[in-house]
């Protein structure tokens, strides 16, 4: 059951990458990338139950923070400001 | 006082994250929390007295229950709009007047609005909050201000101001 849910979650991440490749404008690609980052945290959480090791959740927490910083930087670039403002 | 509050907060966060009571871990956490509090206190809250007023925690619990309920409602709303064959959407950006004054309370209100059904907050320009709404159901500013922000504003006022 859990392995099945893990496969579904991975397929959803692949869907998000479809929006990243296909998206008509640059903002669409960034939305896809942001959502992909959140879905990876879900994959990490399910893997943590399957392998019974808690360090995978550390990877998830780090992934949340790094994808947050990445999205903020890209959004600043998109609104046309310098990065030090 | 502010230094101490940030030190305690980051130390508790470290202990919850590592979950280990050995001496080496306590010393490492204390050092990390000390460096954090020395570097980043200037970005912290200005009135830390608010942390030790129990009434605020009570209202926070009430707010948490209402907020969770609104989140679940938001998800069913989005699922209905996405799965419906005709996609009943009528998007637009509307203005909402703000009554909250402090920055942190405004940020919390904007976060809450993002997670409630069909709305996402865009920007704040002096006392006016701009909200993208997926189904603009009325034209009257009074009605939609109450519909979007009114539910949370009174609780957030009691918690953070």
């Amino acid at each position, binding site marked *: *059951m*859990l392995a099945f*849910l893990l496969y*579904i*979650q991975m397929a*959803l991440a692949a*869907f*998000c990458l479809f929006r990243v490749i296909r998206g008509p*404008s640059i*903002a*669409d690609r960034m*939305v896809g990338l*942001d*959502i992909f980052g*959140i*879905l990876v*945290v*879900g994959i990490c*959480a399910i893997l*943590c*139950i399957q392998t019974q090791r*808690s360090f995978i*959740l*550390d990877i*998830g*927490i780090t992934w*949340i*923070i790094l994808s*947050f910083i990445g*999205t*903020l930087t*890209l*959004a*600043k*670039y*998109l*609104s*046309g400001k310098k990065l030090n403002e | 006082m502010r230094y101490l509050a940030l030190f305690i907060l980051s130390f508790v966060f470290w202990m*919850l994250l590592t*979950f280990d009571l050995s001496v080496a871990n306590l010393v490492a956490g204390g050092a990390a929390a000390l460096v954090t509090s020395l570097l980043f206190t200037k970005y912290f809250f200005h009135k830390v007295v608010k942390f030790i007023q129990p009434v605020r925690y009570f209202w926070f619990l009430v707010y948490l229950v209402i907020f969770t309920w609104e989140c679940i409602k*938001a*998800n069913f709303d*989005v*699922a209905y709009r*996405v799965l419906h064959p005709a996609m009943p*959407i*009528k*998007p637009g*950006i*509307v203005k909402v007047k703000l009554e909250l004054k402090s920055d942190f309370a405004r940020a919390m209100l*904007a*976060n809450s609005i*993002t*997670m409630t059904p*069909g709305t*996402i*907050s*865009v*920007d704040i320009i002096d006392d006016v909050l701009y909200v*993208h709404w997926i189904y603009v159901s009325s034209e009257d500013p009074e009605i939609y201000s109450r519909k979007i922000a009114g539910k949370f504003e009174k609780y957030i006022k009691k918690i953070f101001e």
Partner: protein
Amino acid sequence: MVSTIFISVGVLFNLFGCIGLIRLPDVYNRLQSATKCVTLGTCSILVGVAFHFGLIDAGVKALIAIPLLFFSATVAAHALVRGAYHAGIKMGDKSVKDDYKDAVK
């Protein structure tokens, strides 16, 4: 058992969010459906993990990740909407109202 139910509900909500991401017409609507559904779905998965482990290190880590995920996802959504508007991306054909246009000028 409880944890499996929570994880299934979370994956289901993630599925709705991704359908919205593929199907809705413009950036702003896509961001709405995707942010709400995927954030609550992932929070539900993390609650399931916390139920499975109980209050040991893995469970507490999962509970800590929930507020972190909430704040980071909502703030990233604000930044993306604002950036997309300032980059001049038009709202879709179905839009009826735009108050923000006067404020930006």
